[in-house]
């Protein structure tokens, strides 16, 4: 019985991770969700936050991703991210930089999805506390 599925984490500039994993915790746009084997096909956008997955019980990975998209199809999970930083190397300044970017966008005012950005900012501040 297969209790693993294939995961590809790809950023615009390189391949971050490729391999078999047991589960993936995804910071989805409308809430975190866990992908397990035989997950129904779905496409969702990702908000900035921590992407966590486990190759097995002892081998866990954690990346900070700055937004992107996930596609789940026939036990093939592809995560396309703008950028991914290994969880251990996350620098608080990086996150702070993204927050200040959002602040600028919020202040310019011509953004339709103000609420979204505000939520994203909250998420990031949460992530900042976690790291």
């Amino acid at each position, binding site marked *: 019985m297969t209790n693993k599925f294939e995961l590809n984490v790809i950023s*615009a*500039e390189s391949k971050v991770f490729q391999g078999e994993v047991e589960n993936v915790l995804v910071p989805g746009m409308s809430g975190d969700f866990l992908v397990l084997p035989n997950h129904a*096909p*779905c*496409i*969702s*956008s990702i908000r900035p936050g921590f992407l966590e997955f486990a190759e097995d019980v002892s081998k866990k990975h954690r990346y900070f991703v700055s937004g992107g998209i996930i596609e789940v199809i026939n036990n093939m999970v592809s995560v*396309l991210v*703008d950028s991914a930083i290994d969880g251990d190397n996350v620098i608080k300044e990086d996150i702070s930089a993204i927050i200040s970017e959002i602040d600028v966008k919020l202040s310019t005012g011509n953004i339709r999805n103000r609420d979204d950005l505000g939520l994203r900012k909250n998420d990031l501040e949460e992530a900042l506390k976690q790291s």
Partner: protein
Amino acid sequence: MANLKDLKIRIDSVKSTRKITKAMQMVAAAKLRKAQESAEKGRPYAEKMRAVVANLASSVTNIAGDNKFLGDGSNSKKFLLIVATSERGLCGGFNSSIVKLAKSRIAELKNQNKEIKILTIGKKGKEQLNREFQSMFIGHIDLSNEKNITIETARHISTDLILRFENDEYEVAEIFYNRFASVISQIPSSYRLLPVSVNEKEEDASNVSFNFEPDEDEILNEIIPKSIATSIFSVLQENAASEQGSRMAAMDNATRNAGEMIDKLTIDFNRSRQAAITNELIEIISGAEAL
């Protein structure tokens, strides 16, 4: 026959030109390898992005209807042509072949009475197009300060493009660049960035209906700017690789021509020298005979 000193000067000058072209060829070869490597690294992302967008687009037409980014652009009136060229010259026909392709497209669109706007990336294309089509220019993107093309640059360009799209400045955007077929072959190509065409689904997804989160429209609005940035990124990377490939070939040619020229001039030089010696000998001998 030119005198010896002139010939000597010419040979030296051609020799130093050859040194320069040889050096440029080697630099281009090194840069080409680097450009190819980074183009390859970005490929999986671009491919996957294209697949996801295709899956999305086909699902959306089934369910939701129209998204402003989707369509086939058939009834559009306003065209934006993005001409991506290099910042530097001395790379053979690289820039003029792109410009030629763009010009033929402009002529074609003009015949159909379309409104045309031009955006250039890279100095060389701007210089060539500015002469004829200045009134159509709406912008220029300068890459001279970018040593390597980063995704940030591409995002910048795509944000600008989408803003213009939303402001109704154009309805169809096409980008012109040189596709990198191999080191010695670059094919001037064009590619439609916007609107995104509604293709068939990817093979492995043909029978799958996706769950979307949030809904399709929102994901599309989120992902299409990203996919455009990715497309621009890969276009710029291909262009950079093509530029170096083209320059390498051009400089290889120039080096060979310089070599041939040096050989020819050296033969001329030796002949003239021999002629001068023979002349002197004849003068001495005839002088001696006259005594």
